[in-house]
């Protein structure tokens, strides 16, 4: 919808680092609700031969999709922004019940120089919602730490079936700039 402050000329590499990690962990299904912060990663996924990007109408669809994918033998990852986490709450109950690997990458809004006050309430409760729902939270705030955080998150999610969310800080992504 709106461009972020860091446009194409300063496009960061961290989304490519994420893509490489997901590829190495044999992630096949990538449900997403678009977010500007995820746009490059979504692009990489949609042009990949091994991953399938699946556009959702609401984020909870992605939780259920990953359960089905696992029953069918595939790993997935859910891409969303912080406001979508609230949409998932009841569906997150499938994770401990069905015990499937759950990894989600969440671009944060409502923090670090946010312009839009409507993003702040859900952005402020994102981590708490995950923790109350039994999902471990890791955070990456700088491009340099993205690879190690992703590696740890994917390892514990896929190897140890530890439900894990990686919060990609607004500090990392850049606060959205609203121009007239």
């Amino acid at each position, binding site marked *: 919808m709106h461009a972020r402050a860091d446009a194409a000329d300063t496009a960061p590499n961290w989304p490519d680092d994420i893509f490489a990690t997901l590829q190495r962990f044999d992630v*096949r*299904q990538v449900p997403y609700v678009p977010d500007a912060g995820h746009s490059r990663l979504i692009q990489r996924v949609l042009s990949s031969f091994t991953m*399938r990007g*699946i*556009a*959702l*109408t*609401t984020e*909870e*669809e*992605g*939780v*259920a*999709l*990953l*359960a*089905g*994918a*696992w*029953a*069918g*033998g*595939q790993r*997935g990852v859910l891409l969303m922004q912080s406001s979508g986490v609230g949409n998932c709450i*009841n*569906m997150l*109950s*499938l994770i401990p*019940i*069905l*015990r*499937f690997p759950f990894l989600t990458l969440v671009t944060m809004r409502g923090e670090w120089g946010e312009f839009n006050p409507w993003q702040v309430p859900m952005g402020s409760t994102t981590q708490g919602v995950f923790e109350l729902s039994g999902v471990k939270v890791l955070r990456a705030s700088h491009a340099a730490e993205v690879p190690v955080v992703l590696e740890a998150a994917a390892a514990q999610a896929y*190897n140890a*079936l530890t439900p894990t969310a990686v919060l990609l800080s607004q500090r990392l992504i850049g606060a959205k700039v609203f121009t007239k």
Partner: protein
Amino acid sequence: MNKANLLDRRQVVSTLLANRKDVVAIGGLGASTNDMCAAGDHARNFYLWGGMGGAAMIGLGLALAQPQLPVLVITGDGEMLMGMGSLATIGLQKPANLSIAVLDNEAYGETGGQTSHTSSAADLVGIARACGINDSRAVTTMAEVEAFAKAVHDISAGPRFANVKIDSANLERILPTRDGAYIVNRIRADLGFQPI
């Protein structure tokens, strides 16, 4: 509302699963999951006791992971209404091996029989078709149920959707296992996957 000739839900579900071969079947939260169990427990039955609105998406995840297997979601009108957006998601992905059958009694049968939106307003067949699921059928006879059950095995022509008008009788509950990890791991084992 014309309530004549409504179908018996158990008969519908046993017909859908009678000659199932390699079908993986997902039963939506509510009476549908019980109907599936009543038709006979099976290693490829994915019984849901929660996650209302998620049945069709679990079907999509399975169908994309196993494109050579027919995947059949059997759920109720209330459960489908809660996950209506997933029809648009499925319409976009067009998994050829996915079929969805909604058992539509126009009511929330598990919670006291409150009237649902399909009784006079929402047309799930029209919604599914408008979401890009071209093969969307309004089913009112057992012959149509049998035809749909056959079509489920054609993994090159889906996705397909059937809304089956059933009567609102409350039947004896036939309860499947409610151990979710067991249900998933049993399906995985039957498909040849090892435990982690």
